[in-house]
């Protein structure tokens, strides 16, 4: 095997930033990803951007799925991206799921959130996205 790592996504972190206490959606996606063969690190609710970035660093995940309902995405997501950069985690794919208006989704993509999945989108879409490398080149 060569030193070059594959673009394959195997380990993912499912994180629930913000203050809302529901993590049903996050758990659904975590289980669906496990059943699709991913190793899913799950850290529970009310995660700060620092907690998320720190977990991503220690667990060396290939991708992070942010699940959000509270509407705080425009303040929280840029801070998460910033915390990841600070730790040198520039090659980690970040995607989001939850209630996010289309206009915000476009802005989030510019910030480095590779994909945004609405609340109605089937988990198979997320799985396909991750299997395709999450928009990441090697």
């Amino acid at each position, binding site marked *: 095997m060569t030193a070059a790592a594959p673009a394959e996504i195997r380990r993912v972190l499912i994180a629930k930033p913000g203050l809302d206490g529901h993590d049903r959606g996050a758990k659904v996606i975590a289980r669906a990803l496990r059943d699709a063969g*991913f190793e*899913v690190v799950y850290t529970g609710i009310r995660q700060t951007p*620092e*907690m998320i970035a720190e977990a991503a660093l220690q667990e060396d995940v290939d991708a992070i799925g942010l699940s959000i309902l509270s509407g705080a995405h425009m303040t929280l997501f840029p801070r998460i991206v910033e915390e990841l950069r600070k730790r040198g985690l520039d090659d980690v794919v970040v995607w989001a799921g939850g209630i996010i208006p289309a206009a915000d989704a476009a802005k989030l993509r510019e910030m480095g959130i590779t994909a945004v999945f609405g609340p109605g989108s089937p988990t198979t879409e997320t799985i396909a996205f991750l299997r395709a490398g999450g928009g990441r080149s090697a």
Partner: protein
Amino acid sequence: MPDVVPLLRSAPAHELAARLRQEDRLALSRMISAVEAGRSDARRELRHLFALGGKAHVVGITGPPGSGKSTLTTALAKAYRARGETVGVVAVDPSSPFTGGAILGDRIRMMELHDDPGVFVRSMATRGLTGGLARSTMDVVALLDAFGKDVIVVETVGVGQDEVEIARTADSTIVVGVPGLGDHIQSIKAGVLEIADILVVNKADLPGAQQVVNDLRAMLSLGATRTPGWTPPIQETVATTARGIPELVKQIDAHVQFLKDSGSWRARRAENARRQVLGILEDHVRSAFERTIRSETWEARFRNIAARTEDPYAVADELLREVALGDDNE
């Protein structure tokens, strides 16, 4: 936190290792992944890093799901940190044998450690490796050790044979029991009891804890203990409030002291090393054979065995002669 130079996972292992030696946590993390993935350049670096280790005290924690192992690990980590020692945690969860997927949920109980740079928590999935799990766990322990961690806690799920294997990678093994698992005699399996250096009855705030203590005491008086001269103490704890944790830390200290004074320390590590070397060998041999049999010629032979025109013993003998056992240098 100062900005850091990015370190892509495609970085060669020698770069990861060099940065790991400078206490770069990202390099440690990516080195763990590279070793776990079986990257040959990472394995070579691991050999050099091994020489830097040997200083950490390795504590294994095992017990049934939900018994409070992660909570206990967190409480222990905090106690060691209060004494100024740095801590590494390896938390193992099972992979699905069907999909290979896993949910690694131990961190949920460890979030209060998140802002302490002196603690590094890594979750690991078993990746369907029976027996092999202990090997890759030992590799991760070796990396945390080389990184300079003073104490390394390995948390494993209390099921299956891997359990006993992993306990054998530790200097001190803690077996956790809890009240309220129905048949209290079964709350700790006899086989697991034999690997215990220290017994913990967690959830001592719940009814029935005393009964578990009594049962364990009775079982201990019957069975042979692991190390002559050391009777495993039984400690009640409430991991959620840290009740009993200072006492547990003292018992771990006492166990270390006992191992050192009695000379068992070296003996135990040598015994673990023997197992580790055999395990590595097993990996090499198995992969050599698996490479060889991945051919139509051998597949045809397997079909012959299925049709009973050949027998598996003769085919195995022939395979043994065919495979040259050398270095696994790809």
